[in-house]
C-alpha cells in the first residue's frame, strides 16, 4: 500500500522490485521539477519533455542500481536529467533558449517589462554560450538553489572542483554581460 507520506527511498525500494504504482507516485512527485530543470538547460520545452520522460524511464529501468546510502534520489534524478540535457545539447540542430514570443504589452509599465525582458534575453544568451558544465553549474547553484556540495554530487565531482567550475562560469558570464552592456 502506497502512502502519500512514503519517502523517496521507500518508493525507490518498491520501484526496484517492479512496483509500477510506486513509480507513478515517485514520478508525480518529481516530474515538474525534472521538466523545469531540463528546460533551464536546453531552453526548449519539447526537448525538456523528452528529457524528463527519458530520465524517468531510466529511473524505472535502473532502479535497482540506485543506492540511497550514496546519494539522495533527487541527486540521482538530477544527474540523469543533466547528463541527458548535456547530450541533447551536443546534437546538431539544437537551439537553446527558444523564444515563445509574447503578445504586445500595452500596459503603462510596458517599457520596464521590455527592459527586463531584454536583460533576461542577454543573460540567457550569455548562459547558452557557456560550455555545458559551466552552464550546468550556474543552473544548479543559482537557479535551482542547490548547495555547493549538492551541485557537486549531481555533476559527480568534488566540492572544490565544482567551486572552481562555478567561479569560471561566473567570470565568463560577467565578462559576457559587461561586453553586451558596452555595445
Amino acid at each position, binding site marked *: 500500500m502506497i502512502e502519500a507520506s512514503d519517502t523517496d527511498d521507500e518508493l525507490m525500494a518498491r520501484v*526496484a522490485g*517492479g512496483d*509500477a504504482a510506486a*513509480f*507513478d507516485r515517485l*514520478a*508525480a512527485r518529481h*516530474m*515538474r521539477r525534472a*521538466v*523545469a530543470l531540463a*528546460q*533551464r538547460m536546453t531552453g526548449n*520545452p519539447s526537448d*525538456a*519533455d523528452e528529457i*524528463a*520522460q527519458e530520465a*524517468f*524511464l531510466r529511473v*524505472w*529501468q*535502473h*532502479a*535497482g*542500481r540506485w*543506492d540511497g546510502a550514496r546519494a539522495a534520489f533527487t541527486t540521482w534524478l538530477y544527474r540523469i536529467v543533466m547528463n541527458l540535457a548535456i547530450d541533447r545539447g551536443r546534437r546538431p540542430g539544437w537551439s537553446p533558449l527558444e523564444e515563445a514570443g509574447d503578445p504586445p504589452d500595452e500596459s503603462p509599465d510596458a517599457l520596464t517589462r521590455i527592459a527586463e525582458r531584454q*536583460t*533576461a534575453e542577454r*543573460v*540567457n544568451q550569455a*548562459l547558452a554560450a557557456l560550455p555545458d558544465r559551466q552552464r550546468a553549474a*550556474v543552473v544548479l*547553484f*543559482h*537557479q535551482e538553489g542547490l*548547495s*555547493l556540495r549538492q551541485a557537486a554530487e549531481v555533476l559527480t565531482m568534488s*566540492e572544490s572542483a565544482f*567551486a572552481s567550475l*562555478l*567561479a569560471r562560469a*561566473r*567570470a565568463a*558570464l*560577467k565578462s559576457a*554581460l559587461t561586453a553586451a552592456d558596452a555595445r
Partner: protein
Amino acid sequence: MTDEDFLRHLDDYGASPERWPPELRAAADAALARSPALRDALEDARSFDRLLATPAPPVEDARVDRLLAAVGKAARGMPQDSIAVLLLGRMPRRTVAGFCVVLLALGWLTGGWLSGQLAGPAPTAPRSQELALLNDEVVTLFDGDSR
C-alpha cells in the same frame, strides 16, 4: 580573511556568504562586520546574482499530466535491469574489471586442464610404441645371430 580574499570569494561563489564553503563563512561574516566597503561590494554582487537566478519556467498541470501518463505507460512495457546487470552495476568499475580478469584467467586455466585431460591418452600411444621399439631392440640385441 583580507578584503581582497573576500572580494575574490564574492566573485567566485556569489553574494550569499551563507552558501560559500563552510570553512569560509565565519571569516566572511567577520569581514563584512568590520568593512562598509565590503558590504557595498556585497550589495553590488547581489544585483548580478539576481540576474542569474531567473525564475523556473512555468510547467502547466496539463503538461505534467501528459508526461506522467506517457512515462507510466512506457514503464509498464519496459523490463527492468536483470540480476546480473544489477550485481555488476553496483560494483565499482575496478572491481568489475578485476572480476572479468579473474573469470578470464579461470577460463584459461580450466581450458588448459580440460585439454590436458581430453588429450591424455594420445601421448601414451607413442610411449607404448617406444616401449615396443625398445622391446624389439632388446629382442634384436639378445638375438644371438645379430651379434
